[in-house]
């Protein structure tokens, strides 16, 4: 029997709601523990009364083990856990997008299935986000996550190269442990296509992005040296990251082309003046003209190619879902911030 209307009944939910999204691919052994940890955090938050973990959305991304069954059992046991089953393996970003589009929280946290992103860090992450006026905070691993030089170094290297080529300073912050303002998370998830790198999509909606150093460790990789990613999928992941960003290096190439074109025009003026005013200074006829012709044609091609690529970039970004603008409501932050500060002082 459903509850009937009782206006005297107080609102049972605090004003700030937190959703947790967990893409699941290989989590049969970890999900029980994860749910227990989330339940613990949920209980603690309920006691505080300020933030409520309203839902944990487990997204079965075509899991290769018995995760789907465990997820269903968990959703039966805990009403705040929702299990979503994707029809096949679409990848971690697509699964995250699917989970976020099912969420309703004021804030959305995304974590991995294997407890490398421990739920106990959710509140510190939220506190850091709100206190600093961020819309998005990534966890920053204090130590090497995989304890593998090649894996950790290549990950950092790809991000650094991408940062250099694109000028997107946030690329190096990207991590799958995120705390995102719910509106922005859902907006970015709405525009994301299968080719969109989700973190890049988030940067289209906000530049209030922060980092919080946390002890993160990929325990499964460290213990078993196995991962859901192989070399090919990592390379594809890196390519998607690169293509999702605006390539500033192309713009630089176009500028060099324009500069070369300009230089060839100036040099041709110099050569013409020299030919007619100071013909005696010309030692070798034809050489200067040849260089100018090469410079002119090269500069012209580079600049035209740059313009074409700029057009292409606009189309690609449009296809990937980059918005013209987005309106956000941060009015609840002040309340949350003051309450969190009060709580901190009391503690």
């Amino acid at each position, binding site marked *: 029997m459903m509850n009937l209307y009782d206006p005297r009944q107080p609102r049972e939910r605090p004003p700030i709601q937190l959703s947790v999204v967990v893409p699941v691919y290989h989590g049969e052994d970890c999900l029980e523990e994860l749910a227990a940890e989330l339940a613990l955090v949920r209980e603690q938050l309920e006691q505080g009364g300020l933030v409520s973990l309203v839902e944990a959305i487990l997204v079965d991304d075509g899991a290769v083990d018995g995760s789907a069954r465990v997820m269903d059992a968990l959703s039966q046991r805990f009403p705040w856990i*929702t299990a979503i089953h994707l029809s096949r393996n679409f990848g971690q970003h697509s699964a995250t997008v699917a989970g976020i589009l099912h969420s309703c929280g004021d804030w959305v946290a995304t974590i991995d299935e294997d407890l490398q992103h421990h739920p106990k860090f959710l509140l510190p992450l939220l506190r850091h986000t709100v206190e600093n006026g961020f819309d998005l905070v990534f966890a920053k691993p204090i130590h090497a996550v995989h304890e593998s030089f090649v894996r950790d170094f290549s990950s950092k290297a790809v991000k650094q190269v991408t940062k250099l080529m694109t000028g997107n300073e946030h690329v190096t912050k990207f991590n799958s442990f995120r705390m995102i303002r719910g509106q922005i998370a859902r907006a970015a998830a709405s525009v994301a296509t299968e080719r969109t790198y989700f973190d890049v999509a988030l940067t289209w909606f906000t530049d209030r992005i922060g980092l919080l150093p946390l002890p993160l460790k990929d325990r499964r990789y460290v213990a078993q040296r196995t991962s859901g990613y192989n070399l090919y999928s990592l390379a594809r992941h890196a390519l998607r990251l690169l293509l999702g960003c605006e390539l500033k290096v192309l713009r630089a190439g176009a500028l060099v082309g324009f500069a070369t074109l300009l230089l060839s025009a100036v040099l041709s003026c110099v050569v013409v003046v020299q030919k007619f005013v100071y013909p005696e200074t010309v030692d070798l006829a034809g050489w200067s003209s040849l260089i100018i012709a090469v410079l002119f044609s090269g500069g012209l091609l580079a600049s035209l190619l740059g313009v074409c690529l700029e057009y292409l970039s606009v189309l690609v970004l449009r296809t990937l879902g980059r918005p013209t603008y987005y309106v956000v409501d941060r009015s609840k932050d002040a309340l949350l911030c003051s309450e969190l500060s009060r709580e901190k002082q009391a503690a």
Partner: protein
Amino acid sequence: MMLLRSNTAHESAPHCVGVLGLGLIGRAVVESLQKRGYVPVRSQKLTWDSPPRLREELREVGDPTLGDSACEFIWCAGRAGFAATDAETSRELGTFETVLEWAESIAAKSVERQVGFSMMSSAGGLYEGQQRVDEQSPCRPCRPYGRLKLHQERRLRESPKLSQRRIFRPSSVYGWLRSDQRKGLIPTLIHNGLRNQETSFDGSFNTLRDYVWVGDVAEIVVRSLFPKHDDTPTNSTRFIASGQPSSIFQIKQLVEATIGRRLQLKFVSQASNALDTTFSANCVRDNGPLTDMSVAIRRIAADFSSNGVSLELRRPHITIKRECLT
């Protein structure tokens, strides 16, 4: 009102079904019944905004069931919308009570006769501003419309003469756009988008709602008339929602991608309808898989296309079989 009858219906299913109100949901219910072999046998125009006149009309209709042992009335009527005033809702409550009394009088004619009554309530009206609503969430209507639905539900539950009392609480229902119906958000967006017209919103970009396709609503309602087990509860209340909240921004993206045009939107700054209302996926699990919103949006857009509006869809059209109403 439309009366449908089936001679081939399952033993536990009603042989006669009266659909009260042929708006968006009512028509879809009729179509769904027709797919299950019900044939429309009578159509009766009723005066919904005047309970005394309605009472008179229903008295003239008499017993439309022709002595069928099992019949069902499905209330899909209602002109009052979210913005309805107290006066409008009290008039509508009077209409509902008149119809219910009529159904009760038919049920009272014979003890053996099984007369059921299903009503379409409104989850949005009852739980406005609440998030992750489930069976345990208390109803807290914020406006006359929600209070009307609550009163209607109570009135139905307290009706002892009816053998079955089913209450359905659909969330935000969307479907085809017809000139004689209230326009929902999604068809309006498509309609205005195709005509390069501006659409005004009483809400914000981020307002979260749970949208459900009218075909799914009708299917769930009609499916409930065919119980799998004999121990069907006399009173049942059911949410019809997708369990997936969607923001206006998300819908805007979907519609733009489908019709291939940019939408012109205007948000009313003093929004009175901007509260998020969402439903837990766990409480709507029994509804089965529902139509994906992107598919439904393409269906509506394709319907526009077939009705003479120039539209280039990016993907192949989805043909919808719709049987004609008699």
